[in-house]
């Protein structure tokens, strides 16, 4: 079974949730999916599906390289977390809701209260 067939449900999900992508073949035969997701949530859906198909990502037959569309926080506004920062504090600096920052950074954050100095958060403005 080719990697494309193995990960067909992932590609179908990308088509369904509005992620545009291109396929290339890795130098070692891995399938490379390079694309742009419309939201952090859509990107997370793809990673969840990848994890379902390859539970610890150990097969080495897929490279999932999905970025975020500008409107979803991929536009280059970032904030480097400093000691004492919280999502609500950062949000008020930019005049947005903390939840918007949380949504845009679900790929790197596990919990809204757990941010660490040095982390670069995408600011969806």
């Amino acid at each position: 079974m080719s990697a494309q067939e193995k990960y067909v449900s992932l590609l179908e999900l990308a088509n369904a949730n509005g992620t545009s992508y291109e396929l290339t073949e890795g130098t070692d035969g891995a399938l490379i999916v390079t694309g742009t997701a419309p939201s952090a949530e859509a990107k997370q859906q793809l990673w969840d599906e990848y994890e379902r198909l390859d539970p610890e990502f150990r097969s080495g037959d897929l490279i999932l390289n999905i970025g975020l569309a500008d409107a979803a926080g991929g536009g280059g506004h970032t904030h480097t977390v400093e000691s004492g920062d919280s999502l609500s504090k950062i949000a008020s600096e930019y005049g947005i809701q903390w939840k918007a920052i949380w949504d845009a950074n679900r790929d790197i954050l596990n919990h809204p209260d757990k941010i660490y100095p040095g982390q670069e958060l995408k600011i969806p403005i």
Partner: protein
Amino acid sequence: MKAKYLTVLTLAIALFASACGKSDADLTKAATDKLAADKVTGVTVKVEKGVATLTGEVADAAVKSKAEASVRSVEGITNVTNSLTTKPLPVATPAAADPALTGKITEDLKKAGCEGAKVTVENGKPTVTGEVPAAKYATCIQVIQQAGVSGGVDNKLVKGK
């Protein structure tokens, strides 16, 4: 009473006739129209005795599977033989030379709180060792895959506590 049976019989015959009424040519047209409606291009359909055979080259496995589902949904088609091929993929080139990629990934891992992961890149293919907290594991793998590598991750990363 007799008239009623006759009506039922006539109806049954009419239904049977209409079911058989779709010739292979009709079904081929119906399937081709359905593919066009579903925006699937590059597929040739041929129906013989209700069985559709799909040939041609499509962009990827998702299109191949979608084409089959579309044709299968056409009334009167009993089975689908999917002989579609997928377009050969261009071979990727790494975004940067190995030492630069290694440096970038190491930096990205640090930013994502994955200090426990150690990466080396050889010919665009990363190998990762070390240990990270289980909650960070998927994030750390994601960071590596998004760095512009051109080979699958040789993943020896340990999921810690």
